[in-house]
């Protein structure tokens, strides 16, 4: 791939470029604003590269087809928004327990239900964490610009392949639809991870056996490693089990394979945090306003810093805990009624005052709205 200098792309188009860069060869989806451009562009580009695009009958079918394609060896992706994300929840859990890599993009819109189509919102943060039933690990990434959308899409594929888990890329309408300059990296410039394949003879292959990383190698259907895949709790062979010791080891491994990767998976960016007394914590479109507010306050001589989350789940609490002693206040800036705010408050355990600057009405969180809150705290 040739390096293309300075293209003007939409966030949703950057998802497409990131997916193709990461080696995505299968997309199944159902149209919904504000994510539809991802499907439209991939329907053109995938077949050009030998990949497959299929428009399914609904979002449940879309995620099901992606999981199936992934089991057949394809890096697969679907994209949706609020109502469609709700429909996909059951099969997210299927992908988690059966350890099937795939990427699910949710370009958030205001809800619940049809809500305010299609005003911006970050209301699906907790749903992305807990939407499917049962205790489960999950990786949820986000981005605040077009170039970062590209970067995080590649990361989403990489993490899903490396950890054998569906990864959710949680964008918002603002980032999905805005246009910015982006230079697509040349091939090889950004690391692309492929799932580990088994090398042992088929009769030794145990698709769900523990390994030194906790992630078992994954054979594709048709590779000669015949095995069973189920959403039931299963043993190392993939066969259903209810034996307590097998349930314990199987379920614990699902979590520990991710927790062992926390330092790699939890991505944040910081600005002026070293001497900060107040930190504004934000993500996605809201982080753009947060950065603006921080710059304004720094210009006024205030000791304010920014922590931008690029990973929402697992929650990057280590990034905050670094400032256990130096920071007094954390203000969470987000476009909902405080979904990450509650998480920060939980993590704070009284170590910091936790405040919030919210935009919960389908409106953009502006720098002024953040400044209003932050100035009261720093006064």
């Amino acid at each position, binding site marked *: 791939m040739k390096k293309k200098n300075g293209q003007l792309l939409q966030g949703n188009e950057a998802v497409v470029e990131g997916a193709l860069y990461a080696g995505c*060869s*299968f997309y*199944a989806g159902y149209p919904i604003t504000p994510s539809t451009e991802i499907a439209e562009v991939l329907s*053109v580009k995938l*077949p*050009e590269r*030998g990949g*497959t695009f*299929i428009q*399914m*009958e*609904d979002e*449940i*079918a*879309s*995620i*099901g*087809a*992606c*999981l*199936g*394609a*992934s*089991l*057949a*060896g*394809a890096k*697969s992706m679907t994209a949706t928004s609020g109502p469609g994300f709700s429909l996909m929840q*059951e*099969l997210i859990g*299927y992908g988690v327990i059966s350890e099937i890599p795939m990427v699910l993009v949710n370009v958030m819109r205001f809800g619940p239900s049809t809500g305010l189509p299609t005003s911006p919102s970050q209301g699906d943060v907790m749903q992305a964490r807990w939407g499917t039933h049962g205790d489960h690990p999950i990786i949820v990434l986000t981005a605040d610009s077009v170039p970062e959308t590209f970067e995080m899409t590649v990361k989403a594929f990489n993490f899903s392949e490396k950890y054998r888990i569906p990864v959710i890329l949680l964008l918002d309408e603002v980032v999905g639809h805005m246009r910015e300059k982006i230079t697509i990296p040349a091939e090889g410039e950004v690391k692309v991870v492929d799932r580990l394949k088994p090398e042992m003879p088929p009769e030794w292959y145990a698709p769900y056996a523990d390994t030194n990383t906790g992630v078992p190698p994954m054979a*594709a*259907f*048709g*590779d*000669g490693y*015949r*095995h*069973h*895949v*189920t*959403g*039931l709790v299963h043993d190392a*062979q993939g*066969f*259903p089990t209810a034996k307590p010791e097998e349930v314990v080891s199987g379920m614990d491994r699902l979590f520990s394979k991710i927790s062992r990767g926390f330092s790699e998976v939890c991505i944040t960016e910081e600005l002026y945090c070293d001497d900060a007394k107040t930190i504004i914590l934000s993500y996605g479109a809201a982080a753009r306003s947060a950065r603006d507010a921080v710059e304004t306050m720094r210009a006024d001589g205030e000791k304010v810093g920014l922590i931008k989350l690029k990973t929402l789940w697992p929650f990057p609490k280590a990034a905050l805990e670094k400032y256990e002693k130096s920071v007094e206040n954390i203000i969470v800036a987000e476009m909902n009624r405080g979904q990450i705010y509650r998480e920060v408050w939980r993590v704070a355990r009284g170590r910091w005052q936790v405040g919030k600057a919210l935009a919960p009405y389908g409106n953009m969180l502006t720098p002024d709205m953040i400044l209003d809150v932050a100035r009261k705290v720093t006064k």
Partner: protein
Amino acid sequence: MTTPNRIILDKYLRHNKKFPHIWCPGCGIGIVLAALLRAIDRTGWTKDEIVLVSGIGCSSRAPVYVDFNTLHTAHGRALPFATGIKAARPPLKVIVFTGDGDCAAIGGNHLIHACRRNIDITTVVVNNYIYGMTGGQQSPTTPEGMKATTATRGVIDQPFHIAELAASAGATFAARSTTYHAKELESFILKGLEHKGFSLVEAISQAPVCFGRRNGMGDPVEMVKREKELAIPISKTAGMTFEEKKDKIVTGIIEEREAQEWTDLYAGVKKTAGEE
């Protein structure tokens, strides 16, 4: 030629899987699975190229016992997973094994759309007229008047006829037989497997514990005999009214026609796209 069941079982059952299976004594699911295995044996396909996909239900438990690439998905979702597998890797032989509830209720939308796409997947439906796994609630095929735990006074909804439904939704092969007609069932499944395009074989099956008992149908043998009595070959139904056919089991090939298959058509899309 058909290989005896004994040899089929030895060849296709998983030797590393802990038996016994979950099915009740006398349940017809095993007969349908055996018919499928005999048909597969006649295709000459290798185990490695076959993917057997199911949803959730007693019928959908079948894949775990057999030595193919097997996938036990979520309730109703076998066809979307199967579609993804087939679309991503067309040389694989993709077979769906499902129940009446799994494929015609919760998975009904996926069923009609898989038919419409005419994607090369063979679907074998065990129609036992009931939700077996959950203990006998009415399904979309439970005949009017029959009893279920959620219709103790008799079902008032009209049933689906799955094979006809599939045919009218675009399946290019659709057939129905019963566990009594196990040989015919096998031959229809074989035709389905060898058919290029979406094929569906509906297997009427006895569920003595969760359906027969509640409807006074006697033991499994009596239930199977009842299938024989109610069966009427499609060739003999000309001129029969809907009401006359209503309580019968119409057996035979309901639809068989040639049409372009989805993965072939998509290969064409890729070719044109690559040349642009």
